[in-house]
């Protein structure tokens, strides 16, 4: 997952053989020295790594962090509003990426998937919520959780059936291909695009939530859904909208991620765990929390890889464990 793009950043494994450690596939061999992370073979001391590489790694981290944020934002809003942790949300991300692959490869146009993927996925999400998920609200959180898990599971299997279990690389669109000089090395334009585009979306979200009527209703519903209901707003419809919108956003994130992470069946699970860590740290229902936590996790992972690759995972678990013990509601969360 995360390790992939770090490696590909240094050209070591350019979008091939890029697998998730979670997907029970090929070991990335990060413990080998030939990754080039440290410049010379065998020289591991962190001081030897120039500040440039740190900065580039940091940018990587921010890029990936923004991606996580795009997915986690929908998840945390839905969780905050209805107490449902939609595990299938990560599957929406995965589906977005795979649809992007199909559109890009078979229709030859990557940009089309920007439009199509989110729409298709949002439609799917709305169908699921309206006809299937809604039935379990009365039954309590456990059936909800099991159901969303079930959907996640089914989607992953469907993906394997339709697209196979091998990673499918998605070509970077011609417009954004190539590198740009940055800090003494070159940096892929596409990644900067991801960063920029995510920021645009973030701004868009902020504007909608802060300035528009519907945004205010959504924020209110996250805080206190019952109150909003009493005030006369149609809460189920608002929820449906947030659910679908979040799914569309996750799919969009998948589309963007596809060219540089490529698509693989384990990507849903990877993103799920990253999102979960982000939500735990950032706090339920808090978008700011999700943003801060996502960027933190991204940076932590990418810098962690520099120092001790084998333990890159440990950092985020440690952080999550610390947060859970010290401040269970998350950094920005509200008391339940």
């Amino acid at each position, binding site marked *: 997952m995360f390790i992939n793009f770090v490696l590909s950043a240094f050209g070591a494994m350019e979008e091939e053989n890029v697998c998730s450690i979670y997907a029970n596939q090929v070991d990335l061999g990060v413990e080998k020295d030939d990754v080039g992370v440290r410049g010379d073979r065998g020289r591991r001391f962190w001081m030897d790594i120039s500040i440039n590489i740190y900065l580039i790694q940091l940018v990587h981290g921010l890029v990936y962090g923004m991606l996580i944020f795009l997915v986690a934002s929908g998840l945390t809003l839905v969780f905050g509003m209805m107490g449902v942790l939609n595990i299938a949300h990560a599957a929406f991300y995965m589906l977005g990426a795979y649809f992007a692959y199909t559109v890009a490869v078979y229709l030859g146009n990557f940009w089309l998937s920007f439009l199509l993927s989110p729409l298709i996925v949002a439609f799917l999400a709305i169908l699921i919520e309206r006809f299937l998920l809604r039935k379990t609200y009365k039954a309590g959180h456990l059936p909800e959780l099991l159901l969303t898990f079930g959907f996640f599971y089914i989607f992953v299997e469907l993906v394997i059936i339709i697209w196979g279990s091998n990673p499918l690389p998605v070509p970077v669109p011609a417009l954004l291909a190539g590198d740009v000089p940055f800090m003494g090395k070159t940096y892929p334009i596409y990644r900067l695009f991801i960063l920029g585009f995510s920021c645009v979306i973030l701004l868009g979200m902020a504007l909608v939530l802060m300035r528009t009527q519907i945004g205010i209703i959504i924020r209110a519903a996250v805080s206190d859904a019952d109150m909003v209901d009493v005030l006369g707003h149609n809460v189920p419809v608002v929820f449906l909208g947030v659910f679908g919108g979040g799914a569309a956003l996750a799919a969009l994130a998948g589309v963007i991620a596809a060219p540089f992470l490529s698509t693989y069946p384990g990507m849903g699970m990877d993103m*799920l765990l990253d999102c*979960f860590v982000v939500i735990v740290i950032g706090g339920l229902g808090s978008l700011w929390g999700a943003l801060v936590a996502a960027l933190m996790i991204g940076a932590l992972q990418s810098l962690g890889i520099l120092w001790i690759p084998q333990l890159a995972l440990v950092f985020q678990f440690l952080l*999550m464990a610390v947060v*859970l013990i010290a401040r269970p509601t998350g950094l920005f969360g509200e008391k339940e």
Partner: protein
Amino acid sequence: MSRYGAFQIGGGGVAAVLLLFPIILPEIKIHLAIEILIFALLAVSFNLLLGYGGMLAFGHAAPFGVGAYAAALSCNHLPGMPLLVTLLIAALSGFVGALFIGFFCVRLKGAYFALITLAFQMFLFAAALKWRSVTRGDDGMGVVRPELYLPGLGSISLMNIHNLYYLTLVLVVVGIVACYLFLRTPLGNAVMCMRENDVRASFLGYDVFLTKLTVFSFAGLLAGLAGGLFVLFQEFVATTAIDVNRSFAALLMTVIGGTGHFLGPVLGAIFYTVFQDWISSLTKHWILFMGILFVIVVMYLEGGLISLLKWERIRVWVSGQKE
């Protein structure tokens, strides 16, 4: 015939069938039976958490895998270790692993709890994958089945699949019965209080953290034992023993079988294993069917498959006993 009488005869019949399996079944089916037994134990331990404790854990492969690896390492690096001790090591490793993980997880509830157990399991998976010097990563380690030494009967070779079947049968039954008896003690009752209303329980003086940690560890003990038996059966252990598919298999089996009844998971394990065996020769996408069935059960059949068999549903399941 009284219900109690019917129950006696039914139980006796099942016992007879189980004991006679090696004689009446072809060898390939005995392998299947052993696999079913092992997964039945895993599923029962999972349901201890879910159906009785109200704790949904997505990472239940963790103690299973830890037990499996512990057993494998014991067989390979400690030759001469009696088999039963090896299995004890497997169970205890599962116990300790669950104790450690539970310490961090058990204070949480619902989705948080489910996913954090998954996170720990993933972490262990990554550790198993990368720590090649010890675990051989995803190549896995082969294990030679040690001989079972019983005083009075001498050395019994487990290469004879019948012997392995009986050993597995005995240990799994012991594990399942232990679980059943546990649920009838006050501590077992405390676990069920956790499921019903852990907040109220704490106001009655129950230490929620300790109670949940205890049941989590006990479930880990049983899962660890299942892991050890699994290694014995497969003569091999790889990261598949501790990966996410294993966790999800336990979940699917238990939910499909039925979380509301003590034997529900057993039925689920039977169904899952037999179905996989049967369908996978027709299509390799049997997992999808399993997933769809899972969703159907969650939405329309809360009691699981076993609720289709029971003729009375009055609260018998709450106390896990017939009265």
